[in-house]
C-alpha cells in the first residue's frame, strides 16, 4: 500500500467505511510513516473543525404557517372527488322528473326506465374512468 492509497483510506475512515482489517493495515502504516501520520493528524483536525463549524441552518418557526398562507392563495382547491358522482345522479333525477311530467307515458314506466338508464350510464362511466386511470398510471 503506497502513501496515496493510505491517504485515500484515511478519507474512507472519515466517511465511516473502514473495516477493522483495513483499519489495522492503516494503523500499521501510520506508525511506520511520519509523513502519512502528519497527514492523518492534519486531516483529523480538519474533520473536527468541519463538524463543528458546518452546522445545519434552521428554518424559522413561521416557515410552515407562511407556506400554508402562500399555498392557499396559489390555487383553488380541486373539486372534491364525490362531486362528479353527485352531479351525475342529481342531473339524472332532474331529467327523470321532467320526463315524467312531459312524456305521454305512464309515470312508473318513465321513472323505471329513467332509473335503469341512469344506473347503466353511471356504471359504464365508472368503468371507463377506472380503465382510463389505470392506463394513464
Amino acid at each position, binding site marked *: 500500500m503506497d502513501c496515496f492509497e493510505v491517504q485515500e483510506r484515511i478519507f474512507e475512515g472519515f466517511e465511516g467505511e473502514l473495516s477493522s482489517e483495513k483499519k489495522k493495515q492503516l494503523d500499521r502504516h501510520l506508525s511506520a510513516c511520519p509523513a502519512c501520520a502528519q497527514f492523518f493528524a492534519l486531516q483529523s483536525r480538519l474533520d473536527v473543525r468541519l463538524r463543528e463549524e458546518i452546522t*445545519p441552518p434552521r428554518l424559522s418557526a413561521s416557515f410552515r404557517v407562511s407556506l400554508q398562507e402562500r399555498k392557499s392563495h396559489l*390555487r383553488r382547491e380541486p373539486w372534491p372527488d364525490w362531486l362528479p358522482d353527485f352531479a351525475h345522479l342529481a342531473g339524472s333525477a332532474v331529467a327523470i322528473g321532467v320526463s315524467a311530467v312531459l312524456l305521454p307515458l305512464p309515470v312508473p314506466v318513465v321513472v323505471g326506465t329513467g332509473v335503469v338508464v341512469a344506473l347503466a350510464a353511471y356504471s359504464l362511466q365508472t368503468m371507463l374512468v377506472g380503465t382510463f386511470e389505470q392506463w394513464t398510471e
Partner: protein
Amino acid sequence: MADEDVQRLLSKKRFDAAFELLLDRYQNKVFRLVNSILKETARAEEVTQDIFLKMWQVLPDYNRRAALSTWLYTISRNTSLSAARTESYRKTVPIDDCEPRDANWDVGMQQMEMKQLVERLSEVQQHVITLFYLQDRGIEDVAQMLDLPEGTIKSHLHRARRALANMMRS
C-alpha cells in the same frame, strides 16, 4: 420503494395529505441544499417555500417515473440555481480576505473561519463538503441531492479535503 406512503396518498388524489408528508420529510433537507447554493439563510427559506409551492402545483402530474425525492431535489436544484443566477446571490470571496493572519498554519487555523476556507473551494466541492457534514456524513444523501454518482461525490470530497489541508498549511 421510498415514500410509498406518499405515493399511496397521491394515487388516491389526497394531495394535501401527501404534501404535508413530503414537507415533514424533506423541508430541512431541501432547505440545506438551497442554503448550500444561495448561502443566505433568509433567502434560502424563501426559495425553499417557492420550491414546495411548485411541488404542490405539479403533484397531480407526478408520473412515478422517478422517485419523489429525485423529483423534489431536481426542482430544488433548478430553482436555487435560477435564483442564484438572476439575483447574483453567488458570493465570491476575494482571496486576500481569506489569507491567514499568521504564517504559522496552526495559528492560522485557530483564527480563520472554516467557512472562508470552504468558500475558496470550487463550487461543486463547496456543495459536496457542506452537504456531507450537514447530512450527517451520508454520501448517499448527498449523491441524491446533487444528482451525482456516489463515486463522484467521494472524489470531490477527497479533493476538497486535500485542498483545505493545503490552505491550512499555507
